[in-house]
């Protein structure tokens, strides 16, 4: 394909000329800005970048990126991205989806794309509501949520995106927050560097239909207690000075341990974060940590290596070429039993 761009790219190179049209105060603005900020740092020529989306507020995203973009149909973005990436492993593919698009109508594609481990980034903006269709409860909405379609409260049990991704065999799973710029950027870097499907749940605020859903995580002051900041090789501790706590995981079941300020967490039984744990059950234990009983894990939950679909597909092509040489149409048409009429 085309040669790499020579001049270093800037954030503005990734800004399209279309006016951004989300509601004022929407968390999507912050995510967009951070992605545009990170893009030039990745060293990928922008003509090799493709943003793919489905339908929903978040799915307007590709229009605002000055890269190649494909705004597809509801829920199917991972399938479109699969076709792009499987046929063109030279491209950097990013899927932008939401909790309705990705987990409701598109749940099937999300599962299967993750399980095939195509090398792409899937960013799921989770605002726990349908925004574009003006305020119905979504698959991640809390039970009892009152919305236009659930005036007496939602009676759906919600799904957890992280647990779903893990169950699908995800090789990279992370959670971050729309307004936490440094963490969001660092997570995007990690996801891009990962060879395989990187699934990122981004907690995103919808001020119009589900305001302050993540307030305690977005607000720096409460975040200390509400979030469990994950660092590979570091103990699972949270809480402010004077109220430090840790997470112990016994038989796959997490519990909270209170720690004195001088206590060594590990010797008190606090688990040490290992994003590359050979067993996914550790990550499942993290995924089970939910508000308000537990702090919500923020960071890279799991990062392991597995061959990618497109690499294996290409290897099959290469193997066939090596074994049989390039396909010869004439030989194919004449293969097997033929006969000649004079």
């Amino acid at each position, binding site marked *: 394909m085309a040669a790499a761009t020579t001049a270093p790219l800037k954030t503005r190179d990734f800004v399209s000329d279309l006016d951004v049209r989300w509601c004022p105060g929407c968390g999507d603005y912050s995510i967009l800005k951070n992605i545009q900020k990170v893009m030039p740092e990745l060293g990928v020529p922008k003509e090799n970048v493709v943003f793919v989306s489905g339908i929903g507020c978040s799915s307007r995203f590709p229009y605002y990126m000055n890269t190649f973009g494909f705004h597809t149909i509801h829920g199917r973005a991972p399938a479109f991205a699969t076709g792009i990436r499987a*046929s063109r492993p030279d491209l950097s593919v990013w899927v932008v989806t939401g909790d309705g698009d990705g987990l409701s109508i598109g749940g099937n594609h999300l599962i*299967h794309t993750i399980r095939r481990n195509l090398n792409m980034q899937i960013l799921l903006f989770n605002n726990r509501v349908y925004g574009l269709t003006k305020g119905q409860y979504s698959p991640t909405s809390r039970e009892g949520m009152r919305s236009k379609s659930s005036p007496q409260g939602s009676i759906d049990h919600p799904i957890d995106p992280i647990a779903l991704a893990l169950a699908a065999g995800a090789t990279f799973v992370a959670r971050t927050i729309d307004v936490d710029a440094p963490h969001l950027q660092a997570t995007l870097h990690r996801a891009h560097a990962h060879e395989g499907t990187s699934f990122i749940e981004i907690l995103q605020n919808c001020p119009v239909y589900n305001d302050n859903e993540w307030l305690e995580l977005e607000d720096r002051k409460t975040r200390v207690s509400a979030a469990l900041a994950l660092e590979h090789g570091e103990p699972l501790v949270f809480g402010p000075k004077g109220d430090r706590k840790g997470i112990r995981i016994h038989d796959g079941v997490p519990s909270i341990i209170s720690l004195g300020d001088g206590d060594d967490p590990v010797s008190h039984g606090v688990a040490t974060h290992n994003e590359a744990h050979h067993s996914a059950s550790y990550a499942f234990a993290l995924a089970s940590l939910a508000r308000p009983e537990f702090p919500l894990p923020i960071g890279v939950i799991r990062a392991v290596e597995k061959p990618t679909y497109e690499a294996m597909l290409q290897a099959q092509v290469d193997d066939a070429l090596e074994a049989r040489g390039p396909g010869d*149409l004439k030989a194919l048409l004449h293969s097997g*039993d033929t006969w000649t*009429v004079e």
Partner: protein
Amino acid sequence: MAQPKKPIKKVEHVAQPEKPADQLEPAALPKKQVKQVEHVAIRFAGDSGDGMQLTGTKFTESTALAGNDLSTFPDFPAEIRAPAGSLAGVSGFQIHFSSEDIRTPADEPDVLVALNPAALHANIADLRAGGMVIINSDAFTGKNLERAGYDGDPLPELVDRYRVVEIPLTALNREALKDLKLSTRDKDRCKNFFTLGLMFWLYNRPIDSTVRWLETKFRGDVLEANKRVLKAGMHFGETTELFPASFTVPKAKIQPGTYRNITGNQALAWGIIAAGVQLGRPIFLGAYPITPASDILHELARYRDFGVKTFQAEDEIAAASASIGAAFAGQLAVTTTSGPGLLLKQEAIGLAVMTELPLVVVDVQRAGPSTGMPTKTEQADLLAALYGRNSDSPMPVLAPCTPGDCFAIMIEAFQLAVKYMTPVTVLSDGYLANSSEPWLIPDVDSLPRTEVRYREDPENFLPYERDAETLARPWAIPGTKGLEHRIGGLESEENTGTVSYLPENHERMVQLRAEKVARITQDIPPTEVNGADHGELLVIGWGGTYGAISSAVNEAREDGLDVSSVHLRHLNPFPSDLGEILSRFRQVLVPELNAGQLRRLLRAEFLVPAESLSKVQGQPFKVHEIRTRIEQMLSAGS
């Protein structure tokens, strides 16, 4: 195969009682008399566990190598295996072979091979009067008769109408294998090859291709057993008094060249590969398994050496979506399915219409609606292909007319898709997919070749700027510097492609999308009229009914009837000369395996009083069904 043909002559050999065999053949050697016949239709029928499809296929391969023209019709039972010996579990395979040009598997078989009572019960009504029925007498036991729905022994009643040949196939087969260390069950599984050997002898077919196939497929005792019973079947034919003579069908006088036997699905898969070669771009197939289209996926998955990437998706929607993604990325993308899958793909196909990306959609139609009868043929997805998407969503629709034509149509479909930047639907059907014919292997150098151009120049690039001749927009693929742009399902502004809700722009874009598809008429060759180009009656069909329609019309013409036929390969747009042709006939008949879909289109488009001959039994037309209607219309009209 295309030559006018005579009415199907009845095969004479089986109807006339011969002199008693012992007078004809006093000794086993020298060989029995060999009689020449022009054409024969045989139907192999048995339980779905009896290997009838394999038997039929091997007989077909050998017949092809013997140089006959042929046409086959495998008639599968439902996919889920019915109880052994039941009527629902009967599997049939009909082959019609001839020294002359033939186009159908024949209305009535001359010979029925029935391996159990259910196979007899399900098929005997089709056998022509005076035909031969060969039965496995070992299977005609009380229980099997009961399962087949017979009260008593059906054979005594048959002898007046048919020549019944009773052979203890199970016992003979076991006897031939008695010293092999195989279970009785395994031995019994070989009896279809005993039967095949017998039929090879009866029609003097070469066995080499079958032996070669066995050698690649089996080893050890199983190989030995199959080879042995194949020969034992032949030997039995030679020595038994049941068959006083064997038969031969001379080579067909057909166009010189190298031939192979091919089914529609195989030709279609190879057409896709050929399109990749001729257009010089890689193939991407997204598919989800579905009867009767899965064989296309199986076949293409074998050819990674052609750079073919196949993707077995999680569902039909993903199969279409991934293919469209691949098309966006610059691949020759195709998605294959059958009716229910087409409906699931429609929203994605609508996106390909809206984003004007080249995608080929193959629908191997089957009997519906809903799950319908998956193993049975129908042509009832025409309106769905044309109108089954939301809003005005025009796209070209093509249909192959013979198994071999499935090859050519795929190259054409891809050419149109990339030339006009549009999704294209190809409507095959269950009959074309599985039936086979000798196929004149095309000269690769003479196949159409098209250069596919991606847009490369960033200067003045507009994603929806249109080519003056075709109205196609540029194919600007990711990886091309300076062409970064966004496309999607929202309405686009003319030329720029920017999202637009402006009323006039939307109307303009709806018109442009329609006009673009309409312009494809400039690529459609003049319509061939079979017979006189004007007259009393025009029979017009499309898709897999070609063989039956052209045979019926040619027969009628030979008998002096004023009838012609047209077979459409292009359903949208119609050829530009079609209206003019229709106007030159007083009556129009449209035989279809649906309730009259093309008829409806012709009436709407051309205001002609077209009449429908509809058949929706999951079975192809018989020649006489069309012939009878032609005669009725001509006598009523005159």
